[in-house]
């Protein structure tokens, strides 16, 4: 099966800044009908990669194919991909309907077909009543929908979305996350979504590529990325994490027995294909750990602070090895942990929860 988009060793160095590698030899296969997210902080190369797929930037080296066809030398107007821009980039001198119909008009579709598709698209994004408005007369959320409809109208094989939700307020952003996922499922179009917001990435994506400093750090489903981060950057960037020093005792495949600073041994997960030996770092999510008595726990320490958050409580533990650890427990009205600040306690987590990190 050929991938919808196949990126091979794609590299970009901007002529103005020859010392900075905007994208370093990235390789990804994005499947048909997939909601694929490029996630990373600003300057990580995610937008550069998206703009190369759209055709606005030329790769310095590497190849880019779509369903096996080489895209490298095609100008943007010949690529069967459409983009939703961060600024929406709606044409200010055209109405909502003219904006949505622009792509079809440029493709030379007959007037009747354009009108029908535009009507369908306006229905799809619930903008039918706004057809004859100027784009300056509609709200930010509505502009967002028009930008989406405009990019979907020519039925591209791949839709590129460049941080389209970042300008919306919190409530609207939540609604649009679900809306985008629904549109992607209904249209069956491959979505490539760029964001720096981990929550957006986790809630919408089929797969996520986590990027930093021009490099793809890890590719996987939301659960893979969250539960089994392969390296320190990924564990740190997505969600909250405790970093626990450990030493590999024995390992077989992805299972590794590691010795903790307390001398106790627990089974942890090794990233696929890794053979790490000696001192390593484990990642343990705060909500994957628990607090217990000192004797039962894997890591002994003193409860230094208890912070109540409503839905959950954070227990800050000063471990005897000098590091800190945070445990998050969901609150229930009929249940308390039974520990208070200053108590000697133990931190507990199940076998397979700790993730060995690549540095």
């Amino acid at each position: 099966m050929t991938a919808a988009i196949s990126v091979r060793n794609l590299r970009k160095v901007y002529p103005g800044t020859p010392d900075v590698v905007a994208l370093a030899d990235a390789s990804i296969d994005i499947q048909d009908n997939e909601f694929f997210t490029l996630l990373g902080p600003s300057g990580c190369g995610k937008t550069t990669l998206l703009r190369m797929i759209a055709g606005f930037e030329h790769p310095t080296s590497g190849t880019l194919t779509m369903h096996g066809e080489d895209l490298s030398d095609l100008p943007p107007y010949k690529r069967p991909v459409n983009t939703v821009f961060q600024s929406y980039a709606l044409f200010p001198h055209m109405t909502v309907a003219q904006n949505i119909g622009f792509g079809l008009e440029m493709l030379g579709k007959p007037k009747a077909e354009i009108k029908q598709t535009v009507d369908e698209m306006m229905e799809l994004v619930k903008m039918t009543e706004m057809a004859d408005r100027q784009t300056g007369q509609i709200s930010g959320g509505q502009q967002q929908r028009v930008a989406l409809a405009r990019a979907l109208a020519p039925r591209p094989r791949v839709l590129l979305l460049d941080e389209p939700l970042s300008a919306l307020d919190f409530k609207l952003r939540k609604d649009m996350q679900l809306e985008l996922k629904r549109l992607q499922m209904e249209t069956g179009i491959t979505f490539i979504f760029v964001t720096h917001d981990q929550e957006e990435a986790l809630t919408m994506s089929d797969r996520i590529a986590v990027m930093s400093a021009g490099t793809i750090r890890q590719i996987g489903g939301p659960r893979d990325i969250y539960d089994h981060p392969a390296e320190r950057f990924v564990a740190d960037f997505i969600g909250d994490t405790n970093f626990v020093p450990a030493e590999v005792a024995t390992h077989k495949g992805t299972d590794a027995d590691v010795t903790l600073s307390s001398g106790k041994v627990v089974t942890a997960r090794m990233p696929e294909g890794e053979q790490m030996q000696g001192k390593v770092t484990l990642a343990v999510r705060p909500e994957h750990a628990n607090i217990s008595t000192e004797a039962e726990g894997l890591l002994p320490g003193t409860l230094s602070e208890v912070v109540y958050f409503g839905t959950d409580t954070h227990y800050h533990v000063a471990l005897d090895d000098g590091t800190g650890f945070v445990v998050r427990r969901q609150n229930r009205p009929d249940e308390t942990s039974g520990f208070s600040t200053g108590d000697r306690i133990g931190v507990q987590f199940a076998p397979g929860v700790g993730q060995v990190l690549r540095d």
Partner: protein
Amino acid sequence: MAKRFDIQRMPGFKTIAAVTFVLLYMPIFLLVIYSFNAGTSIAIWEGFSWRWYVSAWDNQQVQDATVRSLIIAFWASAISTTLAVLAALATTRTPKFKGQSAVFAMINQPLMVPEIVTAVALLIFFAMIKVATGYTGLLYLIIAHTAFCIPFAYLPIRARLTGMDLALEQAAADLYAPPFRVFTRITLPQLWPGILAGAMLAFVISLDDVVITEFVKSAGQDTLPTYMLGQLRRVVTPEVNAISTVLLGISVTMVVAFTALSKLKT
């Protein structure tokens, strides 16, 4: 509480402002007033009359000069604006290239080179062509005016282009519009206010020119300003005031329109 610094409270502020405005506008005010003088003097008031406007209107030389001025200004502004649009596109819609600031300086050269130098250079250059071809028509003046009008047309158009969101043109390309259609469907509709503003500015600048015109024109090719200059050398009558007042009216109207257009949002 510290007092906010206010330049209006500085000693002498009001006096300087008043003197400046009087020096700037008093002569123009007097010029307009005396254009309605019933007498033949430009300094002694003898009552209100339209006679100098009528006299200018009936003057064959004034008529010819006016028509000539308008023809030159029309062609010079049309050609210079077209060239300015192309120059502005080339300097804002291409990747940064070596010598870009040199190109910018060259386009704006007429603003920096003393006008008299350009005038003499054109006089000599055109004289050579006149000798070689025998052609002595208006084309020389149109070419000369076009050349010095380019920067005036270029600057507002360029300002408009740099203020435009580049993502709009990219969005159009993304939606299957080839480069020329991106220009006609997206760039041009938004550029119109800049183009009109540039053309108007060029028109006014051309209409007003004395130095280069005086050097380049052949015999019998007076424009309105050079005709007036010629009149001043002989007998000065309020007819010159009347023509100036009309020119002032045209310029003010166009500058007001220019300002309104530059502020216009798409």
